[in-house]
């Protein structure tokens, strides 16, 4: 039986100055959900990169918007669900960056995909929110 338990529900302003606080919460909630130090630190990296992408691309660096971050524990899975109401995701523009090229931008999504087992972008049923689910399976 799949048992899903919400362990964190938070909403932060889309302000880069608040990312440090968010990282603390993600680190502790990941450890609380049974991640070892290394995995918890990787969860922090993935969620931080996802929040950065929301701030930069969905909100065009407007620090007065909000990002909802919900964390669920589901059997051996840890699920981070990030919701914003910024610019709709243009799926055709989510490019797969080749990490063999040495250039400054576009590192976030490949790093997230390396860390997590599943990365899913979607739109809420009313079309007003972008939803990103990051799923990590604890082996």
């Amino acid at each position, binding site marked *: 039986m799949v048992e899903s338990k919400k362990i964190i529900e938070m909403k932060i302003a889309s302000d880069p100055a608040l990312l440090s606080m968010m990282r603390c919460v993600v680190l502790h909630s990941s450890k609380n959900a049974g991640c070892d130090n290394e995995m918890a630190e990787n969860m922090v990296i993935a969620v931080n990169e996802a929040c950065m992408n929301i701030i930069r691309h969905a909100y065009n660096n407007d620090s007065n918007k909000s990002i909802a971050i919900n964390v669920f524990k589901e059997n051996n899975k840890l699920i981070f669900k990030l919701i914003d109401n910024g610019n709709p995701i243009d799926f055709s523009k989510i490019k797969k960056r080749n*990490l063999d090229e*040495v*250039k400054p931008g576009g590192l976030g999504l490949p790093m997230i995909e390396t860390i997590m087992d599943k990365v899913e972008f979607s739109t809420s049923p009313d079309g007003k929110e972008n939803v990103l689910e990051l799923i990590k399976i604890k082996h």
Partner: protein
Amino acid sequence: MEYKINKNGGYSVIELEGEIDLYCSPDARKVILKELKNGDDMLIDLSKVSYIDSSGIACLVEGYQVANEKKVKFALLGVSQNALNVLKLARLDNVFKIYNSIDEI
């Protein structure tokens, strides 16, 4: 984020400290690019960096590219475990020259 700049053996050594994230990476970028204008070889000391994200890594990549154009050396010094983990995730750990201490150079 805090930083110090020292001169050591012909190198300009920028010691970054704290969290290099989206909030302060623009400052790190300015410091690195401004110092590169002097034309000295450069070392970025990451031993006191507790966290670095992809925007911080992008500053290092940009510095590396500018240094290459200017034909000056650009390397990382005393990279903390957290920073090394992020460099590996970005597959850049083999791009930068990384030294444990200035004596290794």
